[in-house]
Structure formats: structure tokens, C-alpha cells
């Protein structure tokens, strides 16, 4: 399924962001405050852009009926106060779909197994660690059976193994994935293409190979980077110098 942002502008935050993703994993990277989350919020409809539009298979998300059947999102929202069980949280992913108790239960069970949390189904969501909660929310997104998955820093709170697992999982779903990532090396390893945002504007796009070059890293992130090859996969990986470039 094809997702396009066409000239997205939110007054004072992002200006004229245009990007596209279709049945691939696309990463959005950039420094804090560069507008990554705002761009995603426009995609999953939590925000209406002042100008521009987000199109899914050519249809504006604000005009699309049943968008939630096609698009799931992992947001940064984290102040849940209600004490749902893990299974109840994951089952919320079935809300956009026709009800079918037996099928829903199976999908919820499968989603929990996918994120390696089958044993916690009846535990209280609020009693979990940050990383476990994050995985439950990812299971909820999976249970939604989306064709577009939007992830706002999905590796937050996760240990390294679960960071790799979550991104491998997102890739393995075979759907369009649009994800904000802070870790450039993870972005290089798991994304087909990257968009780089800086101060609300799109400054580069392309494959990790094309985008993650020292000049751009210095310009956008103000750090000195060296590109090396990953010894087994061959993807570019970055090593950083201690001192900050002006």
C-alpha cells in the first residue's frame, strides 16, 4: 500500500515535507525537534496539516473511511492510567475490524507470541517494564493487521536484542513501514530508504548508502562521523568522534 506525504506544512514546525513509501521500510531520521514526530502525526491523523496532504493509495487520509483497518501506529503517547491486562490492550487492535471472537482471540495470541510475550497475557499492563509495554503496543499494532505501519521511535526503552527483534519483525510483516528512528545504524540496517529532516525541512533522501555520508551527518547532526561497512551484512555503519563539530 502506498503512503505519500505531499507538501506537508504545519505552521512553525514542518515546511513542505514530501515523501513516499510503498511496500518497503522507510525511515525518517533527524535531530530532536526536526519535525519527525509531527510528520508522522499527520500521517496517522492525530494532526491536520495547515497545508499539504497525506494520501494512502491516492486517497486523503482525512477522507478515507475505515483508515484504521489499513493503518496502525505506535505513538509516543505513554501516560496510560487505566489498568488493562496485556491481552485487553492487544485486543484493542481489533477495534476497527468486524467482530469475530474466536478469530480475534487467535490473532491476539499470535501477536503476543510474535513479540515474545505470550506468558504475560493476563498480567496488568501497568505492571510491566517500559520495554515490555513497548512490545505490547507493537503487538497491538500487529493485531490491527495493517497494510501500513507507522512507528514513532519503536526501539525506545528496548534492550538491544529487542530493538533488533522489533525492526526485523516490522520488516518481516511485508507491509509498508514508515518509522522514525534515532539510531542511525539501526536505520541503515533495517530501512530500504531514509528521509532526513532538519529544522522542519527535508534535507536529503535516498538509500542509507546515499544518505549516511559524513558531510550530511556533520551538517545535520553536528557530529563527525566515519562510515564503515558492517562485516557481515555490508551495510554502512557510522562511528562517531567524541568532539562536536561547530
Amino acid at each position, binding site marked *: 500500500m502506498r503512503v505519500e506525504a505531499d507538501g506537508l506544512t504545519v505552521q512553525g514546525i514542518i515546511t513542505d515535507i514530501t515523501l513516499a513509501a510503498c511496500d518497503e521500510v522507510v525511515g525518517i531520521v533527524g535531530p530532536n525537534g526536526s519535525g519527525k514526530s509531527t510528520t508522522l502525526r499527520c500521517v*496517522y491523523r492525530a494532526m491536520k496539516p495547515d497545508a499539504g496532504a497525506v494520501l494512502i493509495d491516492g486517497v486523503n487520509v482525512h477522507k478515507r473511511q475505515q483508515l484504521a483497518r489499513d493503518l496502525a501506529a505506535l505513538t509516543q503517547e505513554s501516560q496510560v492510567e487505566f489498568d488493562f491486562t496485556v491481552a485487553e490492550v492487544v485486543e484493542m487492535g481489533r477495534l476497527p475490524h468486524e467482530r469475530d471472537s474466536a478469530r480475534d482471540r487467535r490473532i491476539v495470541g499470535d501477536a503476543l507470541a510474535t513479540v515474545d510475550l505470550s506468558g504475560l497475557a493476563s498480567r496488568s499492563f501497568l*505492571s510491566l517494564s517500559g520495554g515490555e509495554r513497548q512490545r505490547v503496543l507493537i503487538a497491538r499494532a500487529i493485531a490491527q493487521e495493517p497494510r501500513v505501519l507507522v512507528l514513532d521511535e519503536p526501539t525506545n526503552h528496548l534492550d538491544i536484542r529487542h530493538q533488533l527483534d522489533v525492526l526485523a519483525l516490522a520488516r518481516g510483516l511485508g507491509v509498508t513501514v514508515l518509522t522514525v528512528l534515532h539510531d542511525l545504524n539501526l536505520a541503515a540496517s533495517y530501512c530500504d530508504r531514509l528521509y532526513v529532516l532538519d529544522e522542519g525541512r527535508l534535507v536529503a533522501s535516498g538509500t542509507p548508502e546515499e544518505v549516511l555520508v559524513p558531510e550530511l551527518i556533520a551538517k545535520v547532526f553536528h557530529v563527525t562521523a566515519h562510515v564503515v561497512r558492517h562485516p557481515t551484512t555490508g551495510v554502512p555503519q557510522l562511528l562517531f568522534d567524541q568532539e562536536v563539530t561547530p
Partner: protein
Amino acid sequence: MIAKISALVGVLAVSIVAGVALGPVSVPFGVTLDLLWAALTGGTVPADLAGQYHIVWDIRLPRVLLAAVVGAGLSTVGVAIQAMVRNALADPYVLGISSGASVGATAVATLGVLSGLGVYALSVGAFLTGLGATALVYLTARTSRGLTPLRLVLTGTALAYGFSAVAMLLVFQAPRGDAARAAMFWLLGSLGGANWQSLPVATVVTALGIVYLLAKARPLNALAMGDETATTLGVEVNRFRTHLFVVTAGITGVLVAVSGAVGFVGLMLPHLTRMVVGADHRKVLPLAPLAGASFLVWVDVAARMLAAPEELPLGVITAAIGVPCFIFLMRRRAYVFGGR
């Protein structure tokens, strides 16, 4: 779930019969059942039981049923409002309706406003100013981006202070002390004025509200997780919150009009229910009204009997029974909604 619902329906049935039988003049249970049966089936009542029949059918039963309706309604509204504003301290009155209603009630009691309406003046006055207050809260809290939970709670709380001040001013300016006392008594909640005429509107509004909320249990779950999450799950958050606002304000307004502002029920019954079955609204919403109905029936029994022949305000009893019970349960169980 079915077992829990059946058990609570059983408890409610027993509570209603007990509530009819118990009072300053007690009617034996067997006689109560016979008289209720006779009334419902159109049977005949022996002449020597005519007095008790009058007590059971004309005085107690409507009052007990109204207690059940008010308890059910306030508990359900509490559940919905706590999810709507995502706040553990919210109750049906958080949006200013009870303090708004108190302005109308005190105006009726102390200034004789609406006196043309006779015994209905207090209810009508309370209802009108209660809804007026809620409308004001809604319009004040609304922004171009919709209703946000925090703005709703803050606006409701702030305006409630204003309305309460007006009500208090009316009470203290009242030329007659007994009028002020009547107004205060009404504010703390009473079913003393209940009769068969007060039942239909309250019952229908509460029942429709409960049916609506039961149908919206899953979107309420999503809303409890946060506005953005609910949006990504296909809930139109602004529209849904506005609907919830109207439904909860409508139920609360009608209930306040017939029973005054009974405190505690709408705050604590939702929490008590969640302590037992968890946060899932598909479980909480069927059980909370049944629990609340039984609870308020017994509260009203206590209100009639503890200081007979005087009646105590319901709000005093709900606090006296409910607060210790709630603290006991909260300390015993690992209940976390609203902070850990």
C-alpha cells in the same frame, strides 16, 4: 461475567425487597412480598393491610426504585466520565453540573423562583441551571482542536467554584432559615420526595444512557489509552467525546433534579468495580450500574432508619459507608488506576 451479572441482579432484587420492607415502620418480608405480588398481578389486599399496602406501594417502592435508578445512573456516568477525561478523580459532577444545579435549587428554595410549578419547582430549577452550567463549561473548554481532557476538568472545577459561591450567597441571604436548610439538605441528596411521577423520566434517560455506553465499551477502552491511540484505532475522538459529554450531562442533570447531588457514588463505585474486574469497559459497564443500584438502595434505607423519624442526607451516608470501605479495598488490593 454471566455469573457476576446474575449474582448482582440477585443482590439488587433482594435489596429492593428489603428496601421496601425496612423503614421507620417495618413491614415483615413475607407481607411485603405478598403485597408487591398483589399489586403487580392485580390481586386483592385484605382490608387490615391497607395501611401497609399504602406504605409499600405508594411510598416505599417508588422511592426504592428511584434509589436504584440514581445509583445505577451515577455509577455508570462515573465510569464514562473517568474514561472521557482520563482522570481517576473525576465524578459525574466534575463538569460543574451539581454546583450549577445548586444555584437553581437554592434560588427556588430561598427566593421562590418558579413557584408556579409547585412541587416540581426544585427539580426543574435544578435541572435548568445544571444543564446551563454544563453548557457553559462545554463552550468555555472547547477549542478549535476539540475538547481536551485537562481543559474540561479545569474549566469544570473553576466554574463550579463560581456556581457554588452563587448558591452559598443565596443561602446566606435567605430571609428564612428553614428555606436555606431545605436547600442545603437537597444539596446533600435525598429521595424523600420520590413518588411514581419522579420515576419515568429518570428511568428512561438512565436506561438509554446505559445502553448507549454499553454499546461504546470498546471505543471507551481505546479512549482510555489516549487520544492519539484512539484515533489510530479508528475512533473519531472529538466527536465521541462530545457525544459522551452530552450523554453524561443529560443523565446527571436528570438524576440531580430528582435526588439532589448525591456524592461519592459516581466517584467510588467505578473504582470499586474496576478493583474486581479490571479496567475493560466491557466488564465494568454491565456491573457498575447493578452494584451502584444496590448500594444506593441500602444507603437510602440507612438514611430513613438511622435517625428516624428524621431523615439523614444521602451524601452523609454514602461518605460514612463508602469511604472506609473504599480505603480498606484499596489498601488490600494492588489497584493502580490513577497513579502508582
